[in-house]
């Protein structure tokens, strides 16, 4: 049985490789906000209040492009609605916690943290303090994101644009799913999701990000029925 501290540390270690892509992306995110002419304090407030990488960039770009606040806020909500799926998966492991703990932990649930903690949870179901792993991944992400976006806001885009570091984001997610390429059912679900996301890319409010997972999960459901 691992202690709370050991689980927290394990979470930190499991998510830290992803900082290789998260930190440059955070710097770019902060720098874009200032470049687009927004108040630096408000650009930073987003990292604290919204705390969601891609959605923050979309929010800034929509507003600077003249979209209404309602459109920008709706888009952020839709882009981040994928967390509903993460929550549904994690709920099984967080079931025993008190409501207040659930409410606090929820603030730090992010893509990479969900991915790494979910992998850990599946292998270590019996651990008593499992949620400390999720707190470890989430807090590491939170601290790095605050520092990265702040440095981007203060120092500007000191990461050269020619390096194309935004490309590190799809790479970080490739690293997360790549081992599941061994399973044919997962490959089918991934390709369904990927192709749907390209097909629906122009759907309003960036809704491709939630439409394609639902199409892919429907395919997963079909595959499960076929297996029987």
């Amino acid at each position: 049985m691992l202690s709370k501290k050991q689980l927290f540390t394990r979470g930190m270690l499991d998510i830290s490789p992803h900082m290789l892509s998260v930190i440059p992306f955070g710097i770019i995110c902060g720098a874009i906000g200032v470049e687009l002419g927004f108040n630096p304090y408000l650009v930073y407030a987003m990292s604290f209040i919204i705390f969601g990488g891609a959605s923050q960039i979309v929010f800034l770009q929509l507003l600077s492009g003249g979209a209404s606040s309602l459109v920008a806020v709706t888009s952020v909500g839709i882009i981040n609605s994928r967390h509903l799926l993460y929550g549904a998966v994690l709920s099984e492991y967080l079931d025993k916690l008190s409501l207040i703990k659930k409410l606090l932990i929820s603030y730090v649930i992010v893509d990479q943290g969900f991915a790494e903690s979910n992998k850990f949870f599946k292998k270590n179901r019996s651990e008593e303090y499992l949620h400390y792993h999720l707190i470890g991944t989430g807090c590491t992400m939170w601290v790095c994101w605050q520092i990265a976006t702040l440095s981007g806001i203060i120092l500007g885009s000191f990461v050269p644009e020619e390096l194309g570091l935004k490309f590190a984001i799809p790479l970080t997610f490739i690293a997360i799913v790549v081992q599941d390429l061994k399973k044919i059912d997962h490959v089918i679900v991934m390709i369904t999701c990927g192709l749907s996301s390209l097909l629906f890319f122009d759907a309003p409010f960036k809704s491709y990000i939630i439409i394609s997972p639902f199409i892919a999960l429907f395919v997963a459901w079909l595959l499960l029925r076929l297996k029987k």
Partner: protein
Amino acid sequence: MTLVSIIFAGLLTYFTRMTMVALISRDMLGDKVKAVLEYVPSAVFPAIIFPGIFINDFGTFIEMNDPKIFGALVAVIVGYFSKNIIATILAGLVSYWFLIFVIFS
């Protein structure tokens, strides 16, 4: 951009994170739903990966000889065999840089 709009966007985002964790208990999900939820990572992350590779900053499709496609393929191969996150990201970036700075420059 006002603080109020940021707060609304933040509240909405927080609700997406919190709702399922707070409302769902173990017994509410049947075995079938749980089996489908096993696929969540495979069903969500390609929606971040594919547009990140195949669609450029202007929202249009890239050419089929774009360096990003090559970089992504290298990342998949290195990731598959190394099982290492840092190696996967670096392999993708370095092969991408090699193409744009050495070959295509």
